[in-house]
C-alpha cells in the first residue's frame, strides 16, 4: 500500500512540476502552432499543385485533420529535452534515486505520466479550439474511445523507448546529440510530419513494422476511423506487443545499470 502511495506521489510530483513551469508548456505550444502554420501553407501549396488537388486519395482537409491530430498525439507521447537521467547522472543525485526502495523505471514512468497529464490539461483545449475553428472534424466519423486506448498504449511504448535511450546517460554524457537525433528520427518515422501512407508502399510497409509508427500514426488513424474491423485490432495488438518488448528491454538495461554502474566523484 505504501509503495502504491509512493508511485501516486510521483505522478503528483510530475503534475506539479509541469504546472510550476506552465509557461514553458505554453511557449512549447507556440512553437507547435508555428510549425502547424508553416506546414499549413506548405501543404496548401502542394495540394494546389497536385492533379485534382488530391494526394494518394487525400484532400487537403483530410491531410490537415491528420496533421493536427498527429501533432497532438506527438505532444502527448514523445519527449523533448535530454532524457530522464542526464541531470541526475551529471550531478550524482542518481545515487539517491538508485538506492530508493522503489523501481527507478516505475518512478520515472509515474512522474512522466503526471507531467503529460498536466500538459494534456494545458494543450488539449488549444488543439480542440483549432479543430473547431477550422471545422476540421465536420462530417467525419471519429473513434474517440478506442483512440484513448491506443493513445495510452502509444504513450507507454514511447516512454519505454525514451527510457531506453535515456539509459545511455549512464555510459556517456554526450546526451544532447543523442536526444536531438532521437527526436528527429522519431518525428520522421512516427508519422508526426505527414501520413506514412504518402510514402511509397514498400517504405510505408517497412516503417509500419518499426515501433515508431505506433507512437503517433496508429492512434491518429484510429481516431480518424481510417482503420477499422480486424485491421484496427491487429494494429493495436502490434502496438501492445511493441510496448511489452520495449518495456522488457528497458527493464533489462536498467537492471544492468543497477548492477554495474560506478559513480565517480563525491
Amino acid at each position, binding site marked *: 500500500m505504501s509503495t502504491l502511495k509512493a508511485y501516486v506521489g510521483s505522478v503528483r510530483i510530475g503534475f506539479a512540476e509541469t504546472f510550476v513551469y506552465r*509557461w514553458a508548456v505554453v*511557449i512549447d505550444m507556440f512553437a507547435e502552432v508555428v*510549425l502547424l502554420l508553416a506546414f499549413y501553407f506548405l501543404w496548401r501549396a502542394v495540394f494546389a499543385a497536385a492533379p485534382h488537388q488530391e494526394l494518394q486519395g487525400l484532400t487537403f482537409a483530410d491531410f490537415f485533420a491528420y496533421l493536427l491530430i498527429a501533432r497532438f498525439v506527438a505532444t502527448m507521447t514523445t519527449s523533448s529535452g535530454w532524457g530522464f537521467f542526464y541531470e541526475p547522472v551529471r550531478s550524482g543525485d542518481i545515487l539517491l534515486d538508485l538506492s530508493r526502495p522503489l523501481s527507478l523505471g516505475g518512478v520515472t514512468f509515474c512522474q512522466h505520466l503526471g507531467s503529460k497529464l498536466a500538459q494534456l490539461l494545458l494543450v488539449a483545449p488549444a488543439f480542440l479550439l483549432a479543430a473547431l475553428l477550422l471545422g476540421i472534424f465536420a462530417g467525419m466519423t471519429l473513434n474517440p474511445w478506442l483512440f484513448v486506448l491506443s493513445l495510452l498504449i502509444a504513450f507507454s511504448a514511447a516512454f519505454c523507448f525514451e527510457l531506453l535511450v535515456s539509459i545511455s546517460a549512464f555510459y556517456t554524457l*554526450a546526451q544532447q546529440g543523442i536526444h536531438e537525433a532521437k527526436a*528527429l528520427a522519431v518525428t520522421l518515422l512516427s508519422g508526426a510530419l505527414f501520413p506514412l501512407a504518402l510514402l511509397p508502399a514498400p517504405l510505408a510497409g517497412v516503417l509500419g513494422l518499426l515501433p515508431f509508427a505506433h507512437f503517433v500514426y496508429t492512434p491518429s488513424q484510429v481516431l480518424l476511423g481510417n482503420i477499422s474491423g480486424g485491421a484496427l485490432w491487429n494494429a493495436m495488438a502490434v502496438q501492445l506487443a511493441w510496448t511489452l518488448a520495449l518495456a522488457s528491454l528497458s527493464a533489462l538495461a536498467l537492471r544492468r545499470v543497477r548492477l554495474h554502474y560506478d559513480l565517480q566523484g563525491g
Partner: protein
Amino acid sequence: MRHHLALMAAAVRLQYLSWRQYRADYSAGLLTVIIEQVVTLTLFWVIFSNVTMVAGWPLGAMLMIYGFTRIAFGISDAFTENLWHVASLARSGELMDYRFRPLGVLFQLLCERIWFERLASCIVGVALLGYGSLAADLDWTLLGLLQVGFYALIGALVYLSILILGAALSVFFIGQESGPMASLFSLTEFAKYPSDIYGRLGSLLLTLLFPIGLIGFVPTAALLEPTALPVIIPPMVLVLVVGSGFFAVCTALWGIALRGYQGTGS
C-alpha cells in the same frame, strides 16, 4: 578589435584541440546534423514524388533554398550553442559571473564553446545548393559564387540575431528553461520554404520584419527569378541593410536584458 580577434583565435584553437580529444562524444552531434537533413529531404521527396512544383518553384529551387539555410545555419550553429544555455545560466545566477569578466558577455558566450561538427551542415548545404542549381539550370559565374558567400554570411548573421533575441527573452523571462529560445527558433521553419507560399503579407513580413526570408528565399530568388522578390530593391542591398539592421536591434535588446539582470540566489 585586435585583442578580441586574438582571443577568438585562441578560443577556436583550444576548442579544436578539445574537439579532437573527445571525438567520440561529438560524433553524436554529427549524427544529429545528418538526421536533420534526412528529415527535411524526406519531406521534399514525399512532396515532389507527388507534384512537380510548389507555388511555381521546382525541386531544384527548393533544394537551393534549403541549401542556403543549411550553410547559414551551420556557420551560426557552430558558435551559438551557449546561447541555448543562457536561460539556465540566468536562473542559476551564473550569468552574473560573465558580467564580472573584462570582456563582452555575448563575446564570451560565443567563444566559450565551438561545435566544429555542426559545420557539417555547411557541407550538406553546399552539396544541396550545387545539386539544386544544376537541376534549376543555373549558369554559375564568379560573381554568382561571391554572391553565395555574401548571402551565406548574412544568413548566418540573421540566425545569430534570432538566437541573441531568444537569449535576451530568456533573461527577461527567467525560470522558463529554454522555452523562449525554442519558440523563437521554431519560426525559422518558415525559412526552409519559398516565402511566397505565405501570401504577399507573409512574404513581406518574413523579408522586412522578422527577416528569415533573407536566409534562403531571397538569395535563391535573386539567382533564379529576381521578379519573385517581394520588394523592388537590389537583393544584395536588401539583404545587407535588413540583415544588419535586424542584428543591431537584437543586440540592442540583449544589452537591455543584460542591464536589467540582477542575478538570482546568493
